[in-house]
């Protein structure tokens, strides 16, 4: 399979121009601190640098990437650093929405395969109502009465519930006939699928911008203290 068609999902490619007159050797020397961190291996051969990383600490300035190639190319106008970096966390974040959609599917399946019976539902409802009734019957502690805390509401009678339902229908509000979905809720799974889809888009743009900025800072000496240490100060 030709992965190049889809490898943009987990690859970040870009380029940074080198300052005029900067040699490949000098450019890689300036980038060197970024690769002198824990569990990072790099190899320099002429105009090319390859690296790989594992178990990157969050304090590693290139923690998002697991490996890649940096190449210096020259033409008549000047030199440019081209980079091609790959990231498992980008791929993971891209696939995470599918995983959470699968969890939602699993909960739907549980609702279909193992639905609560009418008797179980009635029993659970009865227990809850009994509990609420018991709680409502007991007066609040005198301290709470004195301080003005609201007393628990008494459970509504069947007539009150029927009246409320009729009123809602009259106002054309959504009335869930089944009073809740069968089985475990799917809402959190859908919410997290959405969150990870958004995070992927943010990461794809942000990480490219950050690494381009970092390379530029090192190459152009825009940052007085070259960072890259995996250990905090």
């Amino acid at each position, binding site marked *: 399979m030709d992965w190049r068609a889809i490898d943009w999902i987990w690859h970040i490619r870009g380029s940074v121009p080198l300052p005029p007159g900067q040699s490949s050797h000098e450019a890689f020397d300036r980038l060197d601190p970024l690769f002198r961190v*824990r*569990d990072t291996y790099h190899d320099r051969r002429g105009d090319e640098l390859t690296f790989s990383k594992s*178990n*990157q*600490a*969050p*304090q590693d300035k290139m*923690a*998002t990437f697991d490996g890649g190639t940096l190449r210096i190319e020259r033409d008549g106008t000047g030199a440019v650093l081209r980079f091609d970096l790959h990231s498992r*966390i980008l791929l*993971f*974040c891209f696939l*995470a929405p599918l995983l*959470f959609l699968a*969890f*939602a599917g*699993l*909960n739907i399946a*549980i609702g279909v395969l193992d639905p609560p019976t009418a008797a179980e539902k009635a029993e659970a409802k009865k227990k809850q109502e009994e*509990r609420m009734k*018991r*709680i409502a019957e*007991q007066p*609040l*502690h005198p*301290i*709470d009465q004195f*301080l*003005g*805390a*609201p007393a*628990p*509401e008494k459970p509504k009678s069947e007539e009150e519930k029927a009246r409320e339902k009729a009123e809602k229908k009259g106002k054309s509000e959504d009335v869930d006939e089944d009073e809740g979905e069968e089985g*475990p809720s799917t809402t*959190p*799974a859908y*919410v*997290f699928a959405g*969150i*990870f889809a958004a*995070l992927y888009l*943010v*990461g794809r743009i*942000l*990480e490219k911008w950050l690494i381009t900025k970092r390379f530029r800072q090192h190459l152009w000496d825009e940052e007085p203290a070259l960072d890259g240490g*995996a*250990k*905090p*100060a």
Partner: protein
Amino acid sequence: MDRAQGTRVGNRIIGAQSPVTVGWENIGKVEGGPVKKAFFTWFQPTVLIGLIVFWYYAPNSIATASTAIMIGIGFRLFLLGLEWVNPRHESWKLTWKELVTDLFFVGLGYTVLDTVEMYIGDDAIIEAVHNSFDWDKLQWFTGLPLLLQAFLISFIFDFGQYWMHRGMHNWYPLWLTHAPHHYITQLNINKGAVGNPVELFLIGLGIGGFFDFLPRAALLAGTLGLAVGTYQHINVRFNTPRWWRFVFNTTEHHSVHHSQDFEASRSNYAGTWIIIDRIFGTCVDGEAELLGMEGGRRMTIRETLVYPFTEAWKTLRERFGRPQASAVPAE
């Protein structure tokens, strides 16, 4: 503090293997103008008192679980903003990759773990116990003052969590489930969720279900978890009041617990009520910046999910497996 020798705390030497600052007088304060200092001094108690007053007086139509969930999400988002504005350590700043990792484990908690707990969680166990013994609920509990009920719900849960957590640090099978959480190398709002799901399931077990309590008391108890327990994992520097850090857990305490120093990590087990650690002699007041295990090796998501099982398998094979034939050169 002498890094090589550490600091004596009771019978123990804290910080001999990795730097730990011991004693409140040695911990840095919030720096900046008077407004900033006042904000980061009064924020924690103001929010706690404000939320308690809110839940105490909110009408029944507002005092619901869904309101609590919305407040919880909003509060955590706000705290993420505070991490950005006033970080405790630059080296703990939240990155995109860390956010993705943290939210993945938060997501597991809200989805798969939630589903599993429906079948084998504490509620299911308590339900079974009730049905087996026809055990009437402890109804007297609902007659207590609201705030006392809330305190007891929170304290009893935390007391159980303290011993479960301490057990995890002292009994190898339980430690295997907890170890992945100790591979985090920085504290941020959602780092409490990072760990093996088996551990998250175990630490969530409680006995609160045995009691009948007013729904409002449960919401008040939840507020203690939100407005105190959340600060365990946070990268914000506060001037936490003296009374607060005597009674409640703080990010300083929890950073000591996550320190790379072995002795330091065997302290501050409570979630919300650090006073439980004081009672049992496991409290160390201080802070640490260098966190983690194996010198700060970060565990991948995959390893976090499988670690208890792979390590258990390795241990069992070493103990009961057939000895490997050693390679002896032919004569």
